[in-house]
């Protein structure tokens, strides 16, 4: 059983509404029941309702596996980077520290690293992952390239990310505006300020306290 080659995962943060349906549903998947593997965070709640969902990007050359001293993390032939194998994992947290996307979670109580395995029990038998199934905004989408291209003509998918000197290629794709860069420069973006539209309400009205 394997995840079909033509089925891919697409993330579009511009669609995310921060509802946490993905976070709640992740723990309902049989491969990691009771443990949610998704990271969903406000970028800066004081300034915006913007949130960003992060699942495992399933790198072609997974850094987590490369730094694992116990050979506990395997990438299966269908490109899915599996959660750490229980007998092998020594809970050293190397993977947690090394993953450029910040995905693996160290479950101290289990002495085990756990991470998103793309709901392998579901996707390997032709079903969609839990998070992409329930996502009410379809910020998380699971399907073919043909489907996403037809549904979202104003966006492009990209699966190359640059972190400093490291360029990572992933099985999971990110939706970006049409003018498609060669890669997403994550390090540079972290230094940059907000771009695009910004709505300011501070100019409205009078001082509420004084009524002036």
């Amino acid at each position, binding site marked *: 059983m394997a995840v079909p080659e033509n089925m891919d995962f697409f993330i579009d943060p*511009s*669609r995310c*509404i*921060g*509802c*946490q*349906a993905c*976070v*709640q*549903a992740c*723990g*309902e998947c*049989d*491969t990691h*029941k*009771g443990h949610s593997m998704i990271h969903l965070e406000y970028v800066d*709640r*004081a*300034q*915006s*309702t*913007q*949130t960003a969902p992060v699942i495992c990007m399933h790198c072609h050359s997974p850094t987590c596996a490369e730094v694992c001293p116990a050979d506990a993390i395997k990438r299966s032939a269908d490109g899915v980077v599996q959660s750490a194998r229980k007998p092998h994992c020594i809970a050293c947290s190397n993977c947690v520290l090394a993953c450029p996307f910040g995905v693996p979670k160290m479950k101290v109580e289990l002495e085990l690293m756990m991470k998103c395995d793309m709901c392998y*029990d579901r996707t390997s038998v032709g079903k*969609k992952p*839990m998070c992409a*199934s*329930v*996502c*009410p*905004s*379809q910020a998380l989408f699971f399907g073919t390239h043909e489907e996403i291209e037809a*549904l*979202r*003509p*104003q*966006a492009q998918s990209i699966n190359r990310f640059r972190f400093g000197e490291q360029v990572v290629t992933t099985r999971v794709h990110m939706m970006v505006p049409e003018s498609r860069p060669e890669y997403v420069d994550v390090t540079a973006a972290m230094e940059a300020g907000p771009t695009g*539209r910004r*709505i*300011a*309400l*501070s100019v*409205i*009205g*009078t*001082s*509420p*306290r*004084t*009524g002036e």
Partner: protein
Amino acid sequence: MAQGPDTLKVNERFGPHRGYASGTRLASNIEPDRVVNTHCCFCGQQCGIQLKVKDNEVVGFEPWYEFPFNRGMLCPKGVKRYLQGSHPDRLLHALQRDPAAPGGFRATEYDAAVRVAADAIARIQTEHGNDAFAVLTGASLTTEKAYLMGKFARVCLRTANIDYNGRLCMVSAAAGNKLAFGIDRAANPWSDILKAEVIWISGANVAECAPITTEYVWQARDNGARIIVVDPRITPMARTCDLFLPVKPGRDVALFNGILQLMIEHDWLDHDFIEKHTAGFEKLAEHVSTWTPARTSRISGVPEKSIRQAAEWWGQAKTSFLMHARGIEHHSHGVQNVLGAINIVLASGRIGRENCGYATITGQGNGQGGREHGQKCDQLPGARDIANPEHRAHIAQVWGVEPDDLPGRGVDAYEIIRKIDRGEIRGLLSICFNPIVSLPDNNFVRRALEKLDFFVSIDFFLNETARHADIVLPGSLHEEDEGTVTQTEGRVIKINKAIDCPGEARQDWRIIQDIAAALGRPHGLAFSSPREIFDELRVASRGGVADYSGITYEKIEKQYGVFWPCPSDDHPGTPRLFEPGAWNPIATGAGPFYFPDGRARFNVAEYTPPTEDVDQEYPVILTTGRVVSQFLSGTQTRRIGPLVDQYPEPRIEMHPQLAESLGVQDGDWVTAESRRGDCTLRAMVVTTIRPDTVFIPYHWPGRKSANQLTISAQDPISKIPEYKVCAVRLRKAEHAPEYAEQLEPQQG
């Protein structure tokens, strides 16, 4: 008599406690005994969901990909809804008030409790008249139960005083739609959102209150639509919209009038449609001529440039979809706001066609069906009018009673509370309603309920209102019964039973019939199944505006729902109302709208300020609403651990400008005070709200309740309360409130 027991003791015994997955629900690869296709128990979207059942317990869910409305999508409430079952707080026995018992109630035998309730009802009605006993119901009940409640009140109790919690929810939209279209239902299915050029969203926090609708809006945007959002807060959907109009709470109708004025000025009108299919445009045009952009901007708080931009996009669009929700409806002029919205739709001529739509987004699970079949104080089944002699005669005949024996119009839910306060109503039966949390000015509500001679509540958990009951009868959870509901599009769908009621709990309709039998008045209340009730409802609705007569459980299953009206067995249902050439029983072919001449009505939408505007003493606007992880008064969602953890306690949202003027930082305790009460909560300081407005979500009870502050002013037509605007003053609290040490986050 009905004074509630001590809060901490009742919390300890009856909750709310937080339920989490354990045992079978945490085990992997459990083979379920069965998987039941049904729907979520919460909001008006009514997402399809499959419940996994093992040993008479719902152990989890599976997305129901085939159900066309949501195609497997769910919000966090839907994902965790299964945790409401097998819950430690579940009522397994009837309860009788007993101050000496833990939590103030002792378990009692079901039949004896029903006997006590029936005797109290008989005594009150004999001594004080039939109308002295009132019934409060809810729009989360199935349509079968809603129908039964109306029949129970009119035929068994013969009281005029039945009303429901849709009074807090849907009634402004309903009244506005009836005035403009002669019918109250979403005009279009949601599929018409997808290819609309402009989506206008007024007063609807779609992402949090109707999450599944988000995907429809985003897909429209990907297809090229422009999204206009009107809201005092930059909601998650407003964040990336094309045009955000930050309306000052309570001023929506001014904005709609200003838009219409610009449409007229620039001749962005569908003259052909207005001439052939509407009435009243000239009078309205004269009225809005004074709503210049400058005046509209001054009143609505929206910059003039944005008003002009919105009018241009709206005016010139070829296709569009306008939707609204409680944000424009929860006002003392909520109906006027709705009429203002409908006016700009009708003037555009973009209704009743593919990709040209209009709808209110219903709030409660059966917000639509629950308001059609007779649990409203002025209504009989089939959306019939209780004051109309022909309508009364039809229903009396179906029910086997004399028309003169049917009571007349009763009063709305809040007026029922006022009548209790005045001693005119002495007894109350409540089901699916938690008014002590959900009604405005709820300190008054609590004082009124304490005056009741007798109060019987039917519920599956002891909600905060039921704490004041004399008898509590253990009702059924959503998954323990079957029946239909009508979701936001007007699609009638089927709730399927997954498990049996535990303990002594039983299905709500059986409880109602048991009370009727104990009263010795079982006439017409001896159904043996929801299907039997539905079959009678079909007959009762025949020929009415909300005609369900051609809908069967089998047709619903086969078609994934049936849109009413569906007047015959071979009729497929009506996804889109008002299509050219459409027939309806009122116009009988004269036109698509539900008036004798078949024409829609333009109505002058009058602007009036909120009942309680800000002043020097109370200088800040309070508005209230929901968060995505909680639902209504929280009876269920405050018992689901993962949902509580997502947003544990209410916070008071305020802009940094306001926070600075108060010396408040994010997380500080702040006291908000209105003329009716006060409430101390932690501040959430964000730039995503107007600086003159604060927001508090209303799902919590007691000292955390936003409705301690809200005003009980009501719309004169719809009687909806003004939850969205009242005046408060704020101060930084000197110390944490007492409850902070005593209560868990979900408790109040």
